[in-house]
């Protein structure tokens, strides 16, 4: 087991120590800010690596518009047979070499890293070196604080009131970001569906209670550093989705209509025809979690 995990420990601790080295001159080597940002930097790096997968996903979702008539046909033909309907849909996707559904890979790929980070941070708490996080770094990281809470301590393993408060706040933040991300997708990001709206509302309600519960149950055992990682990843997911929904929404979704209206309005005021909405799909680099950039438009002279 350790032969599989050792490289992971090396990567995770290596990235953290590397970012720490970069930031140490700015914030100070022993500063909690430096260590917290190092963990966040790890998240950013992983998520940047995963961006191509995300883009691929978006593109194959867009490719679906072309299949819309076929899909309607299948739905009509097998409306009494859910299984056959799903089968035929899958065959259709395969035929056109596209698949709108995400595989669980991006999530699964993060799991070992998550586990490695958990071990590395636990190592800090128990003075056990892992990978590159050893010697002076281990000593420095052991005292690093995130808003007053040592990054290696857990809710259950600490008597300090600050640790309890910070972990609870982080867990609340994780629940909040997950919920808003999901809600945003359901309300704005998905093509309108008839009759299933009630079910969606129901599911949202379940989620509203379920996620804080899941996060709370698991979160109390996790070191503050892991919670920082988790929160950052959630925030990134939200930002990524926010960007896509605003700038490049799924055709047929409420956000898509909004954008079209906005563009039509803009075009009218500037005396220019409506631009195809998909024009800037592939060319735009996915700069994520960034502020909404104002759209630059060429003016007709």
């Amino acid at each position: 087991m350790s032969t599989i995990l050792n490289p992971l420990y090396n990567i995770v601790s290596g990235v953290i120590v590397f970012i720490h080295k970069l930031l140490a001159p700015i914030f100070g080597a022993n500063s909690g800010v430096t260590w917290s940002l190092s963990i966040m930097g790890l998240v950013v790096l992983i998520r940047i690596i995963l961006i191509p997968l995300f883009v691929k996903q978006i593109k194959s979702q867009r490719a679906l518009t072309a299949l819309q008539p076929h899909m309607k046909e299948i739905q009509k033909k097998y409306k009494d047979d859910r299984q056959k309907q799903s089968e035929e849909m899958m065959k259709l996707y395969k035929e056109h070499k596209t698949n709108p559904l995400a595989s669980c890979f991006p999530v699964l790929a993060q799991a070992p890293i998550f586990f490695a980070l958990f071990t590395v941070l636990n190592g800090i708490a128990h003075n056990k070196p892992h990978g590159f996080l050893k010697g002076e770094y281990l000593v420095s990281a052991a005292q690093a604080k995130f808003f007053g809470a040592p990054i290696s301590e857990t809710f259950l393993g600490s008597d300090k009131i600050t640790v309890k408060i910070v972990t609870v706040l982080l867990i609340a933040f994780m629940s909040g970001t997950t919920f808003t991300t999901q809600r945003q997708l359901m309300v704005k990001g998905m093509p309108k569906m008839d009759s299933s709206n009630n079910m969606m509302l129901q599911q949202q309600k379940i989620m509203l209670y379920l996620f804080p519960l899941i996060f709370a149950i698991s979160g109390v055992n996790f070191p503050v550093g892991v919670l920082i990682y988790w929160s950052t990843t959630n925030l990134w997911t939200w930002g990524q989705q926010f960007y896509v929904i605003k700038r490049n929404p799924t055709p047929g979704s409420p956000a898509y209509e909004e954008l079209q209206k906005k563009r039509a309005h803009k075009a009218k005021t500037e005396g220019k025809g409506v631009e195809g909405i998909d024009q800037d799909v592939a060319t735009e680099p996915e700069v994520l979690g960034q502020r909404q950039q104002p759209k630059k438009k060429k003016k007709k002279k």
Partner: protein
Amino acid sequence: MRKIAIALMRAYQIATSNLAPRCKYYPSCSNYAITAVGRYGAKGLAMAAWRIVRCNPWSTGGVDYVDENLDSADIKNLLSVDEKEAVGTN
């Protein structure tokens, strides 16, 4: 043992059922795993693991049953028609 594994997977399904997009395959990885483990035990677990590996961003997914000749919609429809006829003759 099988029951515990299946119960765990059911719990996973309930927990994630409202997380938007699911699996590239039909049936989904978790449904596949439940069928496979229920039918083949440990070997089914290995089959499920292999399925999850296959379910990656570079695959196109598709229809993939544990046993094509037991689970596909056509087979099931055929069976249910037979049953209906059997009921009808009685």
